[in-house]
């Protein structure tokens, strides 16, 4: 009965008018940034983070989560109608979704994407509801060595799963950890690398860095190649998929939901990977794999379900262990910490109304998106036609306002610009921003737990391999680091 009481508590928080409003706003803004190719959910959450100061913590988290899953819905619209992914988790949706649109089945593609997302989102939330408290209780027994090992495993996995060069991803993670050491030493309070600047005393702010790497850098990249894209013009009719569509999609949606849920828990860009793996799996299981890429509905249903389930489950490690596993989870952690709330094993016990309210709001938000988005598709199509010449200055202005509103500090604007330039150049050289931002947040946790572990063990490093959980995590990390070295070479340059 405890469980029902918890869910009841969740409803009492999520269904207050103000939280419903924020849930709605979050989902709407999320869909918007998902639809627009120029700005991703990371940039949008970073921007709105600064506006959540004055809100209740529950409202803040509810709105920010809405942006995240809303973006997953919105991204598929752009993929299907324009053949440009609105955000990275919708890349594979382009393959069959756009083909379907060209065949006059845009409605069915959009419809199944929305329903698949809704079903998978619900599955993900239910899983989150059961798994997070369990994991949280288990984590109560974790000490500093376990936390150090967890952060290490998380970062290594993220580097491993990033597309492109592993060594470059590891370099980005190291640079992020180094950036995290700027400011006061978390144990002794001594200043490091601040060069006398007041702003840096608290370290690099998460928001200016994230806005630079994911907002400004993205805009600069787009400015380099302003091109025109054509929105699919034909009338979209029949958003309700027909019986055959449902029959073809049922299994892909079910498989995508489960797959996405488990992949989402792992560190890394869960939704992105989940969508790719789901597409590959559906293609392999299909009796007609050769038709994939020509507009089969399974190629839309599976990946869209997978990325939404992963969106929900990626909250599990953050809420139950206090370890963010992706750039966007790092920002959520920032949002909680701003309100003086430390996510971790004690989170659910200490803030039940926040946890359960948040969970229930995700149900509500998923339902809202389903009801709202299908009728609003016409509006999103019009939004897509906004010329980049207007969109880009607006995104830049939002970045500027977002960073300035944080502390009314112009120095932070400079930091954002610097990270924007750095991020743009690094991206051109094949380095990605996600490991950096995650490392920036994990850095202080990692340093503190490492130093505490050594204090406990009197400088003996064997503490990391003699404790069972810790040893397993370290072994996993080592395996991921050694595998690329010993793996038989496939092709030169691989």
């Amino acid at each position, binding site marked *: 009965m405890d469980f029902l009481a918890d869910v009841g508590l969740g409803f009492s928080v999520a269904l207050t008018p103000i939280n419903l409003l924020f849930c709605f706003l979050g989902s709407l803004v999320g869909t918007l940034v998902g639809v627009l190719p120029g700005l991703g959910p990371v940039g949008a959450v970073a921007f709105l983070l*600064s*506006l959540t100061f004055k809100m209740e913590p529950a409202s803040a988290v509810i709105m920010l989560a809405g942006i995240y899953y809303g973006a997953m819905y919105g991204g598929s619209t752009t993929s299907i109608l324009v053949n440009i992914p609105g955000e990275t988790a919708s890349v594979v949706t382009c393959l069959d979704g756009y083909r379907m649109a060209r065949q006059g089945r845009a409605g069915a593609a959009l419809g199944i994407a929305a329903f698949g997302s809704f079903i998978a989102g619900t599955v993900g939330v239910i899983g989150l509801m059961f798994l997070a408290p369990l994991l949280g209780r288990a984590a109560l027994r974790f000490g500093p060595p376990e936390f150090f090992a967890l952060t290490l495993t998380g970062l290594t996995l993220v580097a491993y799963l990033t597309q*492109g*060069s592993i*060594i*470059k991803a*590891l*370099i980005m993670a*190291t*640079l992020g*950890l*180094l950036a995290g*050491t700027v400011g006061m*030493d978390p144990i*002794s309070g*001594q200043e*490091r*690398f601040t060069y006398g600047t007041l702003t840096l005393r608290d370290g690099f702010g998460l928001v200016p860095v994230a806005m630079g790497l994911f907002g*400004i850098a993205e*805009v*600069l990249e787009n*400015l*380099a*190649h*302003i091109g025109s894209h054509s929105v699919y013009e034909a009338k979209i009719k029949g958003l309700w998929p027909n019986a055959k569509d449902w029959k073809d999609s049922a299994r892909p949606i079910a498989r995508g939901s489960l797959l996405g849920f488990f992949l989402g828990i792992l560190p890394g860009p869960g939704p992105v990977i989940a969508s790719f793996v789901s597409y590959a799996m559906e293609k392999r299981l299909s009796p007609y794999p050769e038709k994939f890429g020509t507009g089969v509905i399974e190629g839309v249903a599976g990946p869209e379900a997978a990325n939404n389930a992963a969106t929900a489950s990626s909250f599990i490690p953050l809420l139950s262990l206090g370890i963010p596993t992706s750039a966007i989870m790092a920002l959520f952690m920032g949002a909680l910490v701003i309100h003086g709330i430390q996510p971790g094993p004690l989170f659910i016990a200490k803030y039940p109304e926040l946890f359960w309210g948040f969970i229930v709001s995700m149900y509500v938000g998923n339902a809202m998106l389903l009801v709202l988005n299908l009728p609003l598709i016409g509006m999103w199509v019009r939004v897509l036609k906004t*010329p*980049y*010449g*207007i969109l*880009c*200055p607006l995104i*830049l*202005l939002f970045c*500027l*306002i977002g960073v*300035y*509103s944080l502390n*009314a500090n*112009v120095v932070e*604007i*400079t930091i954002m*610009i610097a990270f*924007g*330039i750095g991020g*743009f150049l690094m*991206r*051109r*050289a*094949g380095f990605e921003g996600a490991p950096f931002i995650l490392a920036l947040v994990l850095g202080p946790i*990692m*340093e503190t737990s*490492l*130093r505490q572990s*050594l*204090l406990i063990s*009197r*400088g003996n*490093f064997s503490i990391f391999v003699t404790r069972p959980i810790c040893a397993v995590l370290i072994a996993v990390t080592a395996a991921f680091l050694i595998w690329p070295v010993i793996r038989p070479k496939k092709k*030169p*340059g691989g």
Partner: protein
Amino acid sequence: MRSNVAVAAVLLALGGYIFVEANRLPFGTFHVPQTAFFPKTLAILLLILSGTLLARAFVGSEAWIPSEKIAPAGWIRIGVTLAMLAVFALVLERVGFLLATFLLMIILLRAIEARDWRKVIAVALATALISYGLFAWLLGVPLPAGVLGI
């Protein structure tokens, strides 16, 4: 390949610099690690990783995927945009949000996609007013009023 060498060289230099800087802070011992312990370890890690990148680049086993070439017009747009962001940061607190935003929008709108002046001024004015109304008044963000004193 050459570009990877250049990137690795820059990273090596950075790692060296951080190592030297961290050297000024107390390292402590493994029993009682102090302030420099973590950054110095990371600096060494960075040196090892960028050394590996350099070595792999030399033997040609690190793939360099060339990014799309940016045309001169693209670089100009990027340059103007960055310059305007810096100018915005410099003048924001002196001239105030409304004026700074108005100027920023005019120049960005013109630089990114030249369009006729009347439209540019209308869009810039609307953006400045609406964003100020939304953020400063509705959401209570402390945006500097500046010379206009609103």
